[in-house]
């Protein structure tokens, strides 16, 4: 009897490739993909690593595949931008051991800087793409993806979204099939060496492969027609399929599990059997445009469905009268019920903030004091842009902080006011090349590496700077100060950001110099170290209620109303305080001290 487990989409993917005998797995943490590799590691047997970035991860997997191993590579949607270079050419070389690349997209930007529909990548790179709709399919498709990759000699893209990756469902699991394969890189230069003459041969093969894949898409059970009421036909994939099923259970469905290449005949025959045809999809009109290109009429849905994450109620509203009210939920309960509306009046929002004791807070307090223009990057510290810190002024993509600071200085000159900040994991991911660029081109930027010894934003993964691998083994620890010096930065300072005075001195020195400088603000992430000191307390007799401690934006510092509405009484929640002492350093009256 098969075993049934409740697994997230991410855990199910790990289980699927593990059972299919995966031998090599790599990736870079990125929400919502980050849990796949640790889950795979916990199952054992396969080599698993965090690579320095997505490009390195895919290139390593290309090598492992060339040697015959089945491979998994994981990343979030924007990670594929970083890995796009090898990805497009890997489509030409094909694979030896099956290779599945996970692209985890984030509609609604729950924790991303942009929405991006990576179904477009599969089409652009001409690779087979699978789109699971729940955990069971994550498991099934990941398994099958490795086999399909070998059958059709192509990397297979498996695209999830946040709702698929981070939702749990029941999965029927099996056993691992150990693959007895010799480790043997294939000697086939015409296939694997993409000099123009040989790449042109592969270009033809890619088109032949697409033809074969299209024929496969017509017959495979990955794409299935689910007959229902013929008056409404819906084509859908991924999470959109589940939402459409929820609100239109009576409709006919063409459920697509393989969304590139598409099956034109299956689409035509489905469309011919229904009166009105809808395509339900999240983000881009990827399927809609393809169906329309076949000359098939598609009913319009509201254009704003293309922004953000779908939900049952958004779809119910879009389908209007077609939805059975008993099944659709109440579309706008807050409008219909005054009691509900009153519940929502004046509710304070709860924005995410840097944790109590977060070491980044000291750097931002200092940069705010120095009135610096701060180019930022992707990580927890992006929260430095929010009130009350308000001290991060740009954020583009991983590693961009250094490039942006350099650009500002090239046109504005060094006015001593521009500082790039980025985390240690981000610096290794794609900051190093920017720093080399500054040194090489004679720039004079100040770069602050917020070294909290982890990849905090995605849940605390290790990286070369921590010197611990995903397997928990010690690796060679990257020496950040030595690296910065080696690329040509002579002025490198290491400082503890919880020491505000020392941090200010270091930043003032770096800003005053005409040479490029790196300040490494080094203090472990509170979520990883779990180290708590005795909490601090405010002596309310000494406190003049100036509010300076409140302005450091620590969640452990609350306020209580007093008779003077402009001067609430601050207090420290001893449950949340980890004893970092930042507030005590900002207090002008020494009213904050550590409990005994």
């Amino acid at each position, binding site marked *: 009897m098969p075993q049934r487990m409740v697994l997230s989409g991410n855990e199910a993917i790990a289980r699927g490739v593990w059972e299919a005998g995966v031998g090599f797995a790599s990736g870079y943490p990125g929400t919502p993909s980050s849990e796949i590799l640790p889950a795979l590691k916990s199952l054992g047997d396969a080599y698993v690593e965090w690579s320095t970035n997505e490009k390195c991860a895919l290139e390593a997997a290309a090598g492992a595949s060339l040697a015959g191993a089945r491979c998994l590579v994981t990343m979030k949607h924007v990670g594929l931008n970083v890995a796009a270079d090898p990805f497009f050419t890997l489509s030409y070389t094909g694979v030896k051991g099956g290779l599945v690349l996970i692209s985890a997209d984030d509609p609604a930007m729950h924790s991303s800087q942009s929405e991006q529909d990576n179904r477009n990548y599969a089409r652009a790179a001409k690779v087979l793409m699978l789109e699971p709709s729940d955990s069971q399919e994550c498991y099934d498709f990941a398994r099958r993806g490795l086999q399909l990759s070998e059958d059709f000699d192509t990397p297979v893209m498996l695209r999830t979204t946040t709702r698929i990756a981070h939702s749990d469902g029941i999965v029927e699991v099996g056993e691992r099939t150990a693959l007895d394969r010799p480790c043997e890189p294939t000697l086939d230069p015409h296939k694997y060496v993409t000099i123009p003459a040989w790449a042109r041969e592969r270009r033809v093969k890619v088109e032949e492969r697409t033809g074969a894949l299209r024929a496969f898409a017509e017959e495979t059970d990955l794409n299935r027609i689910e007959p229902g009421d013929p008056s409404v036909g819906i084509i859908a994939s991924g999470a959109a399929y589940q939402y459409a099923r929820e609100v239109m259970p009576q409709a006919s469905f063409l459920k697509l599990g393989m969304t590139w290449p598409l099956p034109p005949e299956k689409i035509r025959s489905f469309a011919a059997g229904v009166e009105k045809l809808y395509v339900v999809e999240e983000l881009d009109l990827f399927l809609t445009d393809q169906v329309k290109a076949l000359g098939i009429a598609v009913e319009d849905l509201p254009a704003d469905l293309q922004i953000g994450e779908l939900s049952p109620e958004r779809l119910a509203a879009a389908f209007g009268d077609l939805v059975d009210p008993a099944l659709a939920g109440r579309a706008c309960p807050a409008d219909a019920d005054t009691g509900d509306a009153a519940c929502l009046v004046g*509710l304070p929002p709860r924005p995410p903030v840097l944790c109590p004791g977060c070491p980044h807070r000291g750097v931002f307090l200092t940069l705010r004091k120095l009135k610096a223009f701060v180019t930022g990057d992707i990580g927890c510290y992006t929260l430095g842009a929010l009130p009350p810190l308000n001290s991060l002024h740009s954020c583009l993509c991983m590693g961009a902080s250094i490039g942006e600071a350099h650009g500002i200085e090239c046109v504005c000159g060094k006015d001593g006011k521009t500082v790039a900040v980025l985390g240690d994991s981000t610096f290794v991911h794609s900051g190093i090349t920017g720093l080399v660029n500054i040194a090489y081109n004679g720039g004079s930027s100040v770069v602050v590496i917020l070294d909290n010894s982890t990849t905090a934003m995605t849940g605390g993964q290790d990286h070369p700077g921590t010197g611990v691998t995903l397997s928990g083994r010690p690796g060679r620890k990257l020496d950040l100060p030595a690296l910065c010096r080696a690329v040509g930065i002579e002025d490198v300072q290491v400082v503890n950001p919880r020491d505000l005075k020392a941090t200010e001195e270091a930043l003032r020195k770096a800003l005053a110099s005409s040479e490029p400088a790196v300040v490494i603000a080094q203090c472990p992430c509170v979520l990883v170290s779990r180290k708590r000191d005795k909490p601090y307390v405010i002596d309310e007799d000494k406190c003049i209620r100036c509010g300076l401690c409140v302005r450091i934006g620590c969640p452990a510092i609350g306020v209580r109303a007093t008779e003077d509405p402009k001067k609430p009484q601050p207090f420290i929640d001893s449950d949340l305080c980890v004893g970092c002492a930042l507030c005590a350093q900002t207090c002008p009256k020494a009213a904050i001290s550590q409990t005994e």
Partner: protein
Amino acid sequence: MSSEARPTNVLLTGVGGQGIITAGKVMAEVALAAGWQIKKSEIHGMSQRGGSVESHVRFSKTGHVYSPLIPLGEVDLVMAFEAVEGLRAIATARPDALVLVDDRQIIPTSVTSGAFEYPQDTLKRLYASGRRVHVVSSFDLACEVGEPRAANIVMLGAASHFLDFGEEAWQEALRRIVRPKALEINLKAFAAGIAAVQGE
């Protein structure tokens, strides 16, 4: 609290770090062991740095569960680990929904900054919404048991009183999920949750 025709929908809501994800996980394990269909989904913004966190749990004894998100207005049981988050969730709940709320206040930075006030009439507003509301002081009860971090298990105990799985099934799930060292105190927390709503 179950119906053959539609799934039972539970919304767990509160602030990052309150153990909401774990509580949802225990609930899913109980439903799995009972042989029910289940889907569960977590919604949290930028990581869990003090922002609002939601877990949607849907289960069904006989039917299929499609969407991992509960359709708006279809929540049968709200488990709010913080008062303002309870208010925020009301519009998602059915008119006949049950609301378990910890009236503990966790002050967001939007309040300390002076931009917003923390409403002092949270319970009054909840009662006025017409739902069945039970206050479960899960944090205080967990502190009494001796483990403040077990507030989520207290809340689960309270919820178990209204759901169609036996007490044994919950204890069994806790045994599988909770670290052995912490099991005894979690079972106590669970019992405290049941006691808090017994007779309701």
